């Protein structure tokens, strides 16, 4: 059943795709999952042996000059990164001021109020990684502590931490990616000296101490964050470094969202936890004939891969028990948009937007993600017989880095993850999905002291914001700590879609194109999907810290060609 979206001006509809000869065969309607053999259409190469239902693969990229070697879907297993263990000490010790061997930084703000209770070390390093056993060789990848995604950091409100991130990348490096790094905790309410300002990068051999205070913005429990991610943010090379693998999950818990589905505290939500709380990062990749990662350093619009990895493995399987799971879904870029459905037509229960719990769960047919967006969903497998597989499929067609096509249909689906229901849970499912999750903080318009307009556009291939080019030494807005503002964010470009990210504070959407936001967007967010000519008005506060922050498009290729502004919080 096809579902057309409002045409956003990218101008690629199904007819155009057929005319361009990109569709390999006629459309197949999914009737019986078992009976129709799948074909590998388009330029992909390779074929899927039976059992994959009627999926067919068409490589919709308009630039297919590089195509990955064939890989059979659903032979790899989903990896869940291990949890990073805290350390008893760091040497040299983490202090308010920069330590010997640390890249220069100002003193950590409010250090004595937030003395670290947890200490962690991450080493950004290079290693070989097998994305899929059928690739001709392993790929040279950059990750943290030898894995990509890096180890998951699980943190609690009220437990400040220091994460010491070492740059152990090789100095002599050839190819895309630059071995000087600066890590950003995306979504974090973090002071500027620890936030990962893009120009704060440091070379191999140095480290940086990030003071993650894990404190509520404004001390307001309604501002509790849930799912964050850490990733490289080095100016002009973010797309290349994150594509090489520099990303990992960061989960924040409090007494309400408490990481314990058996919590006896009456105010705890008891969402699925432990082995049933699974983060998923979706990244599309391209491989050359030797199995190395391929990236186009000469592209300014956005890069698309032709292989779909989840947590670093191409089209993996995940064995699930017949009970509820919490999946934390993240689009890890570099540029692709996704719209996920379950192959059996089952709904998702969406519980967060950008990792922040919604006021109430929403039953949704699909989950849409632009780069860096996070949505937590509950999937309940209890009604599915053992021995059945359910696919998580992406139905959004994208031909180039400009943005998603307007067309989205079941017959174009790309299955990226297969859930294999293989057992009953060892104990009965004690998790819950309560009717109330976390109320929104008040968006008190009386606090607004200013309205600022930001128009994102393109001039002769140069990304501009308010007709100015990014200069990280130039402050484009100074906001006063403790105040709130309305920001009007516009996409003036007629042909590109941009996921716009603001650092430091979550905002609430007041209007999208003049109308109140949908239920899914009545949330605290930090990434806005902005299509051509759209205008979104947000309410945003600036609390607890001062310093330099940025706002930018999170299509990481646009970001690297300077689609960014610097804004500062002043006392």
């Amino acid at each position, binding site marked *: 059943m096809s579902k057309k979206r409002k045409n956003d001006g990218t101008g690629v509809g199904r007819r155009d795709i057929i005319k361009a000869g990109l569709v390999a065969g006629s459309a197949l309607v999914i009737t019986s999952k078992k009976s129709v053999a799948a074909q590998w259409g388009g330029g992909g190469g390779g074929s899927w042996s039976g059992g994959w239902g009627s999926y067919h693969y068409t490589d919709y990229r308009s630039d297919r000059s590089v195509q990955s070697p064939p890989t059979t879907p659903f032979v790899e297993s989903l990896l869940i990164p291990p949890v990073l263990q805290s350390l008893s000490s760091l040497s040299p010790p983490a202090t308010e001021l920069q330590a010997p061997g640390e890249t220069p930084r100002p003193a950590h703000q409010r250090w004595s109020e937030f003395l670290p209770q947890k200490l962690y070390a991450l080493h950004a390093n290079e290693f070989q990684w097998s994305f899929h056993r059928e690739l001709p060789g392993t790929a040279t990848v950059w990750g943290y502590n030898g894995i990509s995604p890096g180890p998951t950091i699980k943190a609690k409100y009220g437990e400040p931490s220091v994460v010491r991130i070492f740059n152990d990348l090789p100095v*002599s*490096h*050839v190819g*895309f990616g630059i071995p000087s790094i600066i890590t950003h905790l995306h979504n974090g309410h973090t002071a500027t000296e620890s936030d990962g300002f893009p120009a704060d990068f440091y070379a191999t051999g140095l480290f940086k101490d990030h003071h993650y205070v894990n404190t509520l913005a404004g001390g307001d429990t309604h501002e509790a964050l849930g799912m964050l991610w850490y990733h490289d943010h080095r100016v002009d090379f973010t797309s290349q470094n994150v594509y090489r693998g520099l990303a990992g999950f960061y989960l924040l818990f409090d007494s309400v969202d408490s990481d314990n589905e058996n919590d006896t505290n009456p105010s705890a939500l008891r969402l699925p936890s432990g082995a049933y709380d699974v983060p998923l990062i979706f990244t599309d990749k391209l491989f050359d004939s030797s199995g190395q990662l391929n990236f186009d350093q000469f592209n300014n619009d956005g890069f698309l891969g032709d292989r779909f990895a989840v947590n670093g493995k191409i089209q993996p399987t995940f064995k699930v028990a017949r009970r509820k799971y919490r999946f934390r879904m993240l689009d890890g870029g570099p540029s692709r948009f996704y719209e996920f459905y379950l192959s059996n037509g089952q709904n998702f229960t969406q519980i967060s937007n950008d990792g922040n719990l919604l006021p109430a769960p929403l039953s949704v047919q699909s989950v849409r993600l632009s780069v860096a967006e996070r949505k937590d969903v509950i999937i309940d497998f209890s009604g599915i017989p053992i021995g059945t597989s359910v696919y998580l499929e992406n139905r959004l067609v994208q031909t180039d880095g400009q943005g998603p096509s307007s067309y989205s249909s079941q017959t174009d689906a790309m299955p990226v993850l297969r859930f294999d229901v293989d057992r009953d849970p060892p104990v009965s499912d004690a998790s819950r999905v309560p009717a109330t999750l976390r109320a929104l903080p008040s968006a008190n318009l009386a606090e607004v002291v200013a309205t600022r307009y930001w128009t994102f556009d393109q001039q*002769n*291939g*140069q990304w501009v914001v308010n007709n100015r*080019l990014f200069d990280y030494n130039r402050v484009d807005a100074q906001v006063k700590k403790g105040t709130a503002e309305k920001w009007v964010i516009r996409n003036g470009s007629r042909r590109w879609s941009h996921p716009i990210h603001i650092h430091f504070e979550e905002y609430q959407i007041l209007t999208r194109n003049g109308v109140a936001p949908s239920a899914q967007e009545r949330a605290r967010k930090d990434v806005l999907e902005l299509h051509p000519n759209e205008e979104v008005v947000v309410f945003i506060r600036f609390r607890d810290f001062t310093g330099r922050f940025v706002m930018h498009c999170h299509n990481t290729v646009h970001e690297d060609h300077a689609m960014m502004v610097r804004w500062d919080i002043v006392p």
Partner: protein
Amino acid sequence: MDRRTLLTAHAAPFAAALRASDDNKTHATGARANYFPNCELVTHEGKRVRFYDDLVHGNKIVLFNFMYAQCAGICPGMTANLVRVQKLLGARVGRDIFMHSITLKPEEDKPADLKMYVEMHGVKAGWLFLTGARDDIEVLRRKLGFRDPNPTFDKDVSQHIGLVRFGNESIDRWAACPALANPEQIARSVLWMQAPNAGA
């Protein structure tokens, strides 16, 4: 009469002597030997050079942008800004940093026209302005990433991409930034293309 013959018949003598891109094998080998064409271009001083062998290959930082002499849009500002970048980079330009501007209108911009443009803008040594066969320049434009994904906009030369691409083939590192950006920021970014010292 095919287009190339037409061009050479009407062009100044130098153009007739330009070899067509049929002997474009690279003589040097490197990370981008198979990526970039080795077409022949002519500098504003009338010297013939091979794109890959002479301009790209090796351990050096190279910059490329596209312009045309009669452009009334962004080119004057872009060139003036890159002149500032050249000043900031100082004596390294011509030593281990090389700047190149390629014309989008090779039929109009002969070497002599480019030489006049160079003098008008105060461009110093170490920065070549280049012309060549139209088809070759179109390939270079695509390979260097100066293309609009929409064919209609891509054909409109007034909408040409105002970025400056820079890189170093020996470490296969390439980046780009707006050519009108703060010249200090451009100069800083260019220096990130430096290969690490031997033995590091």
